[in-house]
């Protein structure tokens, strides 16, 4: 039976971390399962979890008044969702909804923040890796913003 710490190396975000560090992080984590259509987290609620996807697919949704929610990104095995947990008491700015049956490790935000405070080296390493993920998300989001497949200026 695999422990959480055994599962973490599947996730590129944790690649290269020492075994002790993985143990520390695993202490904040638990396995979760979501059936298709179920929400892992909801826009507007307090964001105090961080998800690492192991199987399935999650759609990042933004609700738009007057119409059905828009999916702006899908996340797949090996990817992570959520960074608002870095700052206490921040709400989720989007929802995460399972598209397929999804298995993930869910990390408690307060627990992670505590571990980062206690062990600054681990904290720095985690922040650095999350920053890389955020930077790539931003880069990709900007590409989506360009609406490159749209009609262009001279419609």
């Amino acid at each position: 039976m695999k422990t959480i710490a055994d599962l973490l190396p599947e996730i590129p975000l944790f690649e290269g971390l020492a075994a002790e560090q993985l143990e520390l992080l695993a202490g904040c984590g638990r396995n979760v399962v979501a059936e298709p259509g179920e929400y892992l987290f909801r826009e507007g609620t307090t964001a105090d979890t961080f998800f690492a996807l192991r199987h399935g697919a999650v759609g990042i949704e933004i609700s738009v008044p007057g119409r059905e929610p828009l999916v702006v990104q899908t996340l797949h095995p090996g990817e992570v969702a959520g960074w608002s947990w870095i700052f206490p008491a921040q709400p989720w700015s989007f929802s995460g909804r399972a598209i397929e049956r999804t298995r993930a490790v869910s990390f408690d935000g307060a627990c992670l923040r505590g571990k980062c405070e206690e062990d600054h080296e681990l904290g720095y390493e985690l922040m650095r890796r999350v920053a890389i993920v955020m930077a790539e998300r931003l880069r990709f989001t900007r590409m989506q913003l360009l609406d490159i497949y749209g009609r262009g200026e001279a419609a």
Partner: protein
Amino acid sequence: MSASPSPAGDAKVLDRADFESLFGVLTEEGYEVIGPTARDGAIVYEALGGVEDLPAGWTDEQDGGSYRLRRREDEALFGHNVGPNSWKGQLHPPDQLLWRAKRAADGDFEVEAGVAAEQPPRRAFLGVRSCDLHAISHLDDALLGFDHPDTAYAARRANVFVIAVNCGQAAGTCFCVSMQTGPRASAGFDLALTEVLDGDRHWFLVEGGSEAGERLAASLPLREARPEEVEAALAVSERTAGQMGRELDTAGIKELLYRNAEHPRWDEVSERCLTCGNCTMVCPTCFCTTDEDVTDLAGETAERRQRWDSCFTLDFSYVHGGSVRHSPKSRYRQWMTHKLASWIDQFGSSGCVGCGRCIAWCPVAIDITEEAAVIRATDGAGAPAAGGEEEA
């Protein structure tokens, strides 16, 4: 390299007094003579009736953004340089009908071919300067070189008799020596003339450049040139070579311009450039055209016409969504880089023949030789500081 070595074959002499006979022989052979004439303050290439139409005793003073005719102290027939038009206008006309289509029943239409099917008239180009001979050769590369040659251009080309004239003086805007395109014609002509004025004597050295040229020359009142006459003609070219008003260092210029695509000089010149396109119109090698579809009011007949175009126009590079070369900077850079650099990759030679027309006819006196010199002198300016080149 200035004057070329001694003329090949036996050079002959034609006296000024007999020059009219050249017109007579050409007309008899069925050629319409196109050559220089003074009109509206410039020397332009038009149909000539005889010697009297040549701009005898006129010369041109040219500099950046400036062209003036001035009287000479002698009566030289070709004592000028090049004006605002070139032989491009004759061979690659500014407007041509390519084909016409007529609407038919049931959403159908019928196409008839246009100019491509017509036989062009026989023309003699009188007074083609060496730079312009090279320019014609560059047009040949651009229009005949590949899988789909311009057959209308080829037909016009085949019906032309070329009489080159070796320049007796250089204009302030000339730099054929730098571009190795003159001042002496070496190839591409049927006959070449060098005008010599020496005290009372006024005569032309005549050299044959082709069988057609030799045949025609046989009907002219020519005599054998004496060695000192050949020397005198060569000396004219030597003198001209020493009078170049500009120079352009062509060493490694392709790589120079390719690696300086972000040089700040492009921004600087674009503040002056009006993107008026004069340079492209007067340039003897600019060959760009556009195809226009024109319909009549009833929508029954549609014509496809080919017209001169210029890379300076905003929509020259239009693709859905906008123009690739939107800024004036990018368009000036495109023109100059194409002319001096890309042309080499495309056709194996520079596209510039050093005629200087673009310098004289630019309303703000942008000088291609100066722009090239500045970039060369500040090679690498504006490049990213650290090795930011590599890449994806």
